[in-house]
């Protein structure tokens, strides 16, 4: 699987969200998209997946223009895990994961379908939850179910929009380890939009940093996560050091430039009033 993004631009009601994004992702690669809120991370994922329609030849999958492929073809190549998942009606975990087989099922499911569902539940370690109701699960468990659903599509490319943002540290690590091993062992490329720079640094092969819809930097975590890039993209002073795992570790410095001073003044004003 090879993804090539070629001069991709996208606007919502003539407000440009993405401008001239260029990117290539190879087989078995794990790429993290980072950038401030509103920099276009989610939009980029949706454009790759054609949830948002892109211009011709701006997204190429194995050399084929995604714009010309139909939704069913695309759904057999790409899986998508949205930022948050709710179900309007109660479905069991099994039912939700089975939805990932939608592109392959006509009416009844085949033995292959239930095998794949079982395999994915097993791979994510949630086999024991299969007959529980999706909406009764914790956030971490739900996220695993949704990833299992995307994997049941047997995708060559998995797109995830902040899959760990609302999870505790244990679930964050579990999910990212699963994604990493997926990229390494299952010949699936993984693109993850995320906020936590340290987790991105630790788990990704390459990083894409977006600033206001443009690619600001792309490359290895070492080359992208520097004190200069982070300051100019996020407007936050940081110190970048080597973590004990030998990848860049970002420590934000609290400075007056961050609006922290104003916050302090406001707080002291409140304190003064209450006295």
């Amino acid at each position, binding site marked *: 699987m090879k993804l090539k993004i070629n001069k991709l631009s996208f606007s919502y009601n003539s407000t440009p969200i993405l401008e001239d994004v260029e990117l290539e992702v190879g087989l078995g690669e794990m790429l993290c998209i980072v950038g401030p809120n509103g920099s276009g991370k989610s939009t980029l994922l949706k454009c790759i997946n054609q949830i948002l329609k892109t211009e011709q030849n701006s997204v190429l999958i194995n050399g084929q223009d995604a714009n010309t492929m139909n*939704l069913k073809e*695309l*759904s057999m190549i790409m899986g998508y895990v949205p930022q948050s998942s709710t179900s309007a009606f*109660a479905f069991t975990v*099994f*039912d939700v994961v089975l939805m990932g087989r939608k592109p392959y099922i006509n009416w009844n499911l085949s033995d292959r379908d239930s095998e794949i569902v079982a395999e994915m539940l097993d791979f994510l370690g949630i086999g024991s939850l299969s007959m529980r*109701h999706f909406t009764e699960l914790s956030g971490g468990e739900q996220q695993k179910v949704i990833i299992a659903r995307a994997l049941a599509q047997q995708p060559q490319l998995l797109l995830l929009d902040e899959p760990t943002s609302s999870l505790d540290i244990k679930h964050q690590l579990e999910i990212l380890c699963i994604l990493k091993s997926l990229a390494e062992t299952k010949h699936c490329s993984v693109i993850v939009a995320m906020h936590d720079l340290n987790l991105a640094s630790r788990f990704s092969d390459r990083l894409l940093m977006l600033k206001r819809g443009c690619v600001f930097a792309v490359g290895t975590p070492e080359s992208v996560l520097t004190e200069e890039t982070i300051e100019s993209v996020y407007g936050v002073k940081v110190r970048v050091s080597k973590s004990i795992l030998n990848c860049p570790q970002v420590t934000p410095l609290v400075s007056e430039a961050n609006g922290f001073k104003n916050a302090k003044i406001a707080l002291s004003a409140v304190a003064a009033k209450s006295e």
Partner: protein
Amino acid sequence: MSTADELKTLYQKGKKRKILVMLLVFVALIVVIVVSISLGSGSPRFTEAMQVISAKLLPFLNLDAGPDMTQTIVWTIRFPRVILAVVAGAGLAAAGATMQGVLRNPLVSSYILGVSAAAGFGASLAVILGVGVITFAGGYLIVGNAFIFCLIALVLVYSIARIRGMTSETVILAGVAIGLLFSALLSLIQYISPDRDAVTAIVFWLMGGLNGATWERILICTPIVVVVSVLMIQQSWNINVMSMGADVAKSLGVNSKRLLATNMLLETLATASIIAFTGVIGFVDLIAPHIARMLLGNDHRYLIPCSMLVGALVLLSADTVGRLIIAPAELPVGIVTSLLGVPFFIYLLVNRRRQSFH
């Protein structure tokens, strides 16, 4: 046994249970059909009624249908009414279940696109401007007008929702707005009409009822309901996937906008072809899918057919009660469904073991 086999066994077990539940509802429906045909003003009871029906349904056997009076009561009065109740209940319930699924909203009824007010307005126009007197007997003017105004409501809702991207929110809001528009027009036409009899006729039409059942009418609306229901059931997987949201549905290969538009059309055809004949019968389309959800879950492959059986059962039971409770007079079926259905529905809501919607 491996996990895959275990899962398959569990899944098969669930499937068998769902089919069993549907069979039970079906048996209950048959029982109520038989009871309903055997009861009512006039003498024919169970054996005479069955004699007439078997003679009419199996003409090649040359059975004796019994006296003419019995034949008339059973074959041209009670039986068509029972069949219309079954068809109408099933069709409204299928439309309700599908619309709830497609719009991802358990509060949606099959009238969400404004069709009830539109049909009422169409019927009123026919009553007041058409002839000016009650012409219910062969009133195809009313039927046609009600049906056409349902389609007009659909076109309006679709056009408005399309401008804002065909999301479930825009469809619901546009439907509510168009419904309000037509109910205002309906009030207006009632208010300005000088003909009190016509206004009474409108009020009566709006209450809904199955007393207008004839074989001719059944032959018109049954094919529509059958075809539309089959097309709805065919969409089951797509509707299941919609439950997780439009973006996810799209990533699973389902064009959510097209699904929404298709089902708006199917739903309107089913609802309009029924309420044009019966007047506005509420509540069945809302309650039947929920009872079905409680019985066998939310997989639309089973939910839509089961909703249809439940809808038929509920509407027929309510109509039978309405026919008998103050005999020889009748209560309109819409009043009975609500009076009996609401407490039952609340009981189910309060006592359900598992949440079937959120």
